[in-house]
């Protein structure tokens, strides 16, 4: 007898994605090792840059990076820095990222590109979709599942935003993996049966340090630390600021507000930074409008500039070692991850701190994506000899009396992790209890990051203190919080209404799924109407403003009447769906207001001339 092997259904491929601040990559598991999937242009890196073109299409990656100079107002980069954040906590980022922030950015940033507005998860979703398409083209099969990496130090909102981005791109995110942990997987460090490893990861916008214990294929993270606002971007911005000042004194012209020139200069300082990783000196060169700026930059000067940034990474390293309960002597190996670790000064600092020669055999730009592919193969059951045990980077707490935080899950707890708290009512007949959950290490709520407010509803009216509602806080393997509640006496599940402090609701994510956005985009006529209305808005606003000026009252009665008539006619067609009619009426209004505009112009010129005489 023999068994007939009908063969298992072919396992669907799960890709690993590194959604980076500067570059993003997609990788898959090969027969023996993970490999990076390049884009159609052959580049393994897809720059994390998106341009929203006037016709509704998007440029992603290298073409978008080129468009930074030609379409600076329609292009956005380093969007990872905005993930899971609100307007109040991106003051730092605003200085670095020249994007226009739209209304309603309190809990989710609204990025204005041209006439349209996008949230960071949608921009990230557009990048993810490109990676998905690259993978599908390369592998010749549909890709719907992915492992996506996040900085280990990302909080709940930042993780949720990343997961939302996946969904928006049409990907089922099987797991969010911490970047340093993924890097450890890629290095195959489990080949040394036992040991303590430090992973130092300085990317474009984030810094992570993780300390792991390896034993028999288990990668147990002992502690993690970092800074989600520290990376190569900061070096670029520093160099850019210095160069702008230098140009201002040399040319007598401040280019800060000139987006095109700034982007050209940004490119020049990045090139210089890269060059200084291998050369002792280089030139920062800007050629702009027939003028040429060139300044020599030596590695010594560069080192002096970036030293504060390097030093900022060392404190989290020491803290992580203390949290892990290990001393420098016990660290067996150090792994360097992230493009910024190419800076020689930084390598020296890391080597000095850990007293170990760091690993950098794998390309620091690619190692995280390769590790994500390894984790993808673990999740799809192809590899069973390895297992990641990761931790939550931040303590979880709830608000108590007087704005204090009561900690319920400590940072560096292995996830999944849970905690149970019992709540009751304060007044008779109270039917709901509000719970405020925060993340962070400080003692006051105001110093921690608000995560969400949970409303326990439908409590049966009873005397104060009688209901006993058991609330379970569970951090899942992605580092994302889940909450459930039960009335202790009845054992009944209690309904919990969640109001996340930052981020999108489920329905909002649903509405942002790119396919549905695209279908709307396909409706060309509708888009033309929308765009024409924006133009009409601009024109009408300008006319309304002109009507407030003295010049308006200087114009003859019949002319004012014809302007008002043209304005009314535009308003009538404005809400219709014929974009050509709106255009005709805009042009008519333009025509009717021409003498008025000239009068305003003349009086402005006269005032200016008068001003010079005095």
């Amino acid at each position, binding site marked *: 007898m023999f068994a007939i092997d009908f063969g298992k259904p072919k396992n669907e491929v799960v890709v690993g994605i590194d959604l980076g601040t500067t570059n993003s990559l997609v990788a898959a598991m090969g027969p023996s090792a993970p490999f990076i999937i390049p884009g159609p242009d052959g580049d393994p890196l897809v720059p994390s840059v998106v341009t929203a073109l006037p016709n509704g299409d998007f440029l992603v990656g290298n073409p978008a990076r080129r468009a930074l100079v030609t379409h600076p107002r329609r292009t956005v980069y380093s969007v990872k820095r905005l993930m899971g954040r609100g307007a109040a906590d991106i003051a730092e980022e605003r200085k670095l990222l020249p994007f226009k922030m739209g209304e309603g950015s309190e809990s989710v940033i609204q990025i204005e590109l041209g006439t349209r507005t996008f949230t960071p998860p949608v921009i990230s979703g557009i990048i993810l979709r490109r990676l998905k398409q690259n993978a599908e083209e390369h592998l010749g099969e549909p890709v719907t599942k992915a492992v996506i990496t996040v900085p280990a130090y990302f909080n709940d909102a930042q993780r949720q935003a990343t997961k939302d981005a996946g969904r928006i791109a049409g990907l089922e995110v099987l797991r969010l993996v911490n970047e340093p942990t993924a890097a450890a997987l890629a290095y195959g460090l489990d080949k040394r049966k036992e040991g303590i490893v430090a992973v130092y990861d300085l990317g474009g916008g984030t810094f992570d340090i993780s300390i792991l214990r390896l034993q028999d294929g288990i990668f147990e993270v002992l502690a993690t630390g970092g800074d989600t606002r520290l990376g190569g971007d900061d070096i670029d911005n520093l160099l850019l600021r210095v160069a702008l000042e230098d140009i201002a004194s040399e040319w007598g012209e401040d280019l800060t507000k000139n987006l095109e020139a700034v982007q050209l200069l940004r490119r020049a300082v990045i090139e210089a930074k890269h060059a200084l990783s291998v050369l002792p000196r280089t030139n920062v060169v800007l050629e702009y409008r027939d003028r040429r700026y060139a300044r020599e930059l030596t590695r010594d000067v560069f080192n002096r500039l970036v030293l504060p940034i390097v030093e900022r990474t060392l404190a989290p390293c020491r803290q992580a070692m203390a949290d892990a309960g290990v001393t420098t002597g016990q660290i067996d190996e150090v792994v360097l991850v992230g493009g910024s670790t190419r800076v020689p000064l930084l390598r020296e600092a890391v080597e000095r701190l850990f007293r170990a020669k760091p690993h950098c055999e794998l390309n620091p730009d690619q190692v995280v994506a390769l590790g994500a592919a390894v984790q993808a193969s673990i999740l799809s059951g192809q590899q069973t000899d390895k297992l990641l045990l990761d931790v939550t980077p931040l303590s979880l707490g709830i608000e108590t009396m007087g704005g204090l935080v009561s900690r319920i899950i400590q940072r560096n707890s*292995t996830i*999944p992790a849970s905690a149970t708290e019992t709540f009751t009512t304060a007044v008779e007949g109270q039917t709901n209890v509000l719970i405020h959950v925060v993340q962070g290490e400080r003692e006051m709520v105001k110093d921690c990051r608000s995560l969400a407010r949970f409303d326990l509803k439908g409590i049966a009216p009873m005397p104060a203190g009688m209901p006993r509602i058991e609330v379970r806080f569970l951090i899942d*393997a992605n580092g994302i919080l889940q909450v459930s509640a039960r009335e202790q006496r009845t054992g009944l599940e209690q309904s919990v209404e969640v109001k996340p402090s930052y981020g999108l609701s489920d329905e909002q994510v649903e509405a942002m799924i790119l396919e549905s956005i695209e279908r709307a985009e396909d409706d060309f006529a509708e888009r033309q109407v929308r765009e024409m209305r924006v133009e009409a808005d601009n024109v009408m606003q300008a006319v309304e403003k002109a009507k407030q000026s003295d010049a308006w009252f200087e114009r003859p009665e019949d002319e004012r009447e014809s302007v008002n008539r043209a304005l009314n006619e535009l308003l009538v067609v404005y809400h219709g769906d014929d974009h050509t009619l709106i255009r005709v009426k805009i042009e008519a209004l333009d025509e009717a207001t021409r003498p008025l505009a000239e009068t305003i112009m003349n009086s402005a010129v006269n005032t200016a001339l008068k001003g010079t005489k005095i």
Partner: protein
Amino acid sequence: MRYYEALGLEPRLALDAGDLQKRFYDRSRQWHPDRFSTRPAAEQRTALEMTALINDAFRTLRDPAARAEYVLSENGLEASAQRGKDVPADLLEEVLELNMALEEADGAQVARSLGQFESMLAGVDGQLAGLFAAWDAAPSAGRLEPVRAALNRRKYIANLVRDARKTLETARET
């Protein structure tokens, strides 16, 4: 007691760290959600719950003080309920001395006090080990009371040691 059951252990106050770690790894291999991502949703949920329990259990049981507090609370003795009263009167003099040294930023005196308290901590740990063994041999509520007292004393001293170390560290850095 769930935490002990989760790791397949009898409820004992004295545990072997190596054995505990091995049990933790073995059960993680078996139950971690990574092992269930191609399984039906219900199985994934079970894996998540099981792993959370295993992790909570290991985190609590690997630390002798947290372990003892867990056993106390499972036996209806909240460690914190007694904390205020159990602050040891015989330590008063040394505590005052340390506080003064901390206030005056007298590094040498802080270091001396730190040494004193560190050896006291070792002493309490030794005492606890004996109490653990006693309870393990014949568990009874009466044998938990002294564990609670020793635990509160330990916590008090551990806090002093932590503060003194922190002061010395910041002094060294500045």
